[in-house]
């Protein structure tokens, strides 16, 4: 089982619902976030293009954050999700420095936090992650890459996609449909 997410940049409107839904679902304190929106504008008026991405931890298959964690708090879990065990984390911040995507933040309670794909609180109960379930444009797909019939496998087969900073060699599990 390999959990992955695909996000359609052609449909995302950058509304940030995924951000606030994650905050209320996962008790992310106000002022912090596990997912965020990036808007890139290209060209000059009137020849313009915008790409909008809802970004988060890529749950990398080859995760530098896991490799560099001195306590083993950062680790792989079911379906290849990368998680942080809060009570094991000493807040040293090595993982924050090693992540090419700036996906982690220091929680005010003294540990490092980031996107969990809502593994324990939702996915294991058969629900989609909070961001996926709330997105008004239904532009996010979640599922198992090993299951050819999952939403995510199907949409990746049908559409052109990319991952972020592939040259970092991290093998991200978050895909952007372009």
């Amino acid at each position, binding site marked *: 089982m390999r959990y992955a997410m695909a996000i359609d940049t*052609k*449909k995302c*409107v*950058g*509304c*940030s*619902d995924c*951000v*606030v*839904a994650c*905050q*209320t*679902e996962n008790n992310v304190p*106000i*002022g912090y*976030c596990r997912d965020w929106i990036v808007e890139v*504008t290209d*060209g*000059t*008026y*009137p020849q*313009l*293009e*915008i790409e*909008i991405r809802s970004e988060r931890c890529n749950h990398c298959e080859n995760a530098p954050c896991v490799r560099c964690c001195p306590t083993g708090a950062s680790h792989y879990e079911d379906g290849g999700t990368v998680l942080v065990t809060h009570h094991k984390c000493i807040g040293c911040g090595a993982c924050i420095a090693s992540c090419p995507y700036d996906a982690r933040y220091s929680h005010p309670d003294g540990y490092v936090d980031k996107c969990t794909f809502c593994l324990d609180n939702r996915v294991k*109960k058969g*629900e989609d992650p909070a961001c996926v*379930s*709330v*997105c*008004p*444009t*239904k*532009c996010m797909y979640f599922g198992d890459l090993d299951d050819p019939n999952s939403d995510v496998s199907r949409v990746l087969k049908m559409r052109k996609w990319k991952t972020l900073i592939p040259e970092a060699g991290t093998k991200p599990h978050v895909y952007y449909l372009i």
Partner: protein
Amino acid sequence: MANRREFIKISSIGAGGLALAANTFSWSKGMSFADDLLSPDKKGALRTPTYCELCFWKCAGWVYKDERGEIKKITGNDDDPHCNGRFCPRGTGGVGMYHDKDRLKKPLIRAEERGKQIFREASWDEALDYIAEKLGKIAREHGPECVALFTHGSGGKFFGDLMKAYGSTNIAAPSFAQCRGPREVGFLATFGELVLSPERTDIRDTKCLVLIGSHLGENMHNGQVQEMSDAIDKGATIITVDPRFSIAASKSKYWMPIKPATDLALLLTWINLIIENEWYDKDYVEKYTYGFDVLKERVKPYTPQWAYGITGLKPEMIYDTAKAMHDASPAVIVHPGRHVTWYGDDTQRSRAVAILNALLGSWGRRGGFYYPEKASLPDYPHPPYPKPKRTWRDAFPGKFNLANEVLSTGICDASIPNTARDCTFKAWLVYGTNLIKTLPERKKTLEAIQNLELLVAIDTMPMEITGYADVILPECTYLERYDMLRTNPHREPNIALRMPAAKPKYDTKPAWWMAKKLADKMGLGDYFAWNDIEELLDWQLKKIGSSLDEMKRIGVKKFPRQYDDLYFWPDQDFIFNTNSGKIELYSTDLEKEGFDPIPKYTPHPEPPEGYYRLIYGRAPMHTFSRTINNPNLVDLMDENTVWVNPKVAKIWYLENGQEVYLQNQDGVISKFPIKVRVTERIRWDSVYMVHGFGHSNKKLSRAYGKGGSDSELISKVMLDPVMGGTGMRGNFVTFLTEKPVEEEVAS
């Protein structure tokens, strides 16, 4: 002369204002917040039904609480046609409204202390007695018609009923004259039907969606944004006309970067092309429309070459887009927009939109406009309302006859004493609308306010308008109260329940309670004959085969349609609700009132040298100024910026993030500085900002002074002579890079 009604900062009240006053709250019998009211979801979590109050879309959803009984999250109800189980960011962040510590907490009455005006705390009884007594006096001395209600939001219904019982029908929703009025009047004149809310646009099945200045996606009208996304999935052609490269424009096959204020030229040219090339639906036009031949004649001069000179849009693009509409017809929507009060000829522009749809045969067709239906609920029995001797219309003899709703700005104008005018308003009740930001021409609003004998503000938050009130009634948030059932029209008639998920915080009350109590005090109790709202709702629900208990479990209930289909059939006989019984390409209503029966293009003023047209719009995470202090939403966006094209930035030496003040054509200078965003996404002749920021009430700890206010710079209004809409896109601003010398600024 000192202002009779000074703006008072609520921060001047003592710490006592923060105290919980639960003891003064008498929650009626039978209302409990115990979890037995909650219904479990599929996973067994407990939840309470509501419909969202963060905007007018009113999505129905579920409120979940955490182990401590605190409201934790809100999600959409899967059965709700407004949201299909998915809230927008504001709805999801609605919890912030409940948790906001800056909320209004106790009734406040304006008083004078050592020559200084202050708000003093009052009990509910005292505050309501004060209002009842003043309203009684005004009724005796001037007549109840001299009282007006401004309302935006669900609880306004109860104050509306109170007004009608008292003897006034002057109930104004600023969303008419300041927003959607022209499109309703334009469509009514054409099809004999309103566009309604949610709009009857069949976006999910459309093949071509034409947006004129309407920025769906940034404008987070949930159901429409969802359907636009479905349409993108199905490969629909989107055409966006906007001087700004909006998010919708970025999703479009055709973005038409039009010169602002020339939209009508484009629309008339499209109409001409569609007629010239015989791209209209001949059978439909023949069978259902009136005035085609005159229309054909009148639009002849509007050629793509002519339009190029006016709009700056290439003739080929105008041609190609007209063809694309034809190719998709009848599954095409030329969207009526929502905020359409721009240039004063807005009813005529909306008429052109309606005519275009009629020619393409999209009205009453799948993928065009459907026929919505509404669940009808019986009214709780009450004595007949008195017939008022006058209404706001008497202040404007012979004018605005086609306005099908009350004009908020009309009431504002008629509140300023004027020998030429009857019916000078003496009191305003203001429910849930920050008139200071909502109405254009702030000077006029403030002058009107100075002339009132009573101004009551009912709100959840201290707003700019609450600072001018004589009495402030703090309402509890939608998460802490019942309201009337939601019955907006949709594809399937449906109702939704809002019930409290938590007890009201502080000493706040729901609108139904306030209005009923006030009615009792004014001797109008018979009009509110129910004991409490649960009884009222249960009575209504039982009449239509449901019950309050059932609704508490399901939140949303759908009913079968009573009338025909969503669309009418190709050959179906159909009588439209217009004078001719047909779709009026030539409007007999407008002709009768002395206006052009067929829209005409007239040029609008352009910015003088060194000035730029002020365009404003929406961001998906805020609703005007009302969400601007919500901690969760402020976290997503805490200030707006002024968008400036790089060419313009170069002339003014402006850099990204630099703070500037804006000054408009009338010399009005923005109160707060605003940061510059240098971006290619805006035309060089315009600047853009998101509406609602630049709040001047210090009590809003997160919003005060953040960003700039477009509304304070809208001192010029282009009045729509047809229906009194206030065109607000004719204001021009320039940059002040230094802080202007502080003059005496009236807040």
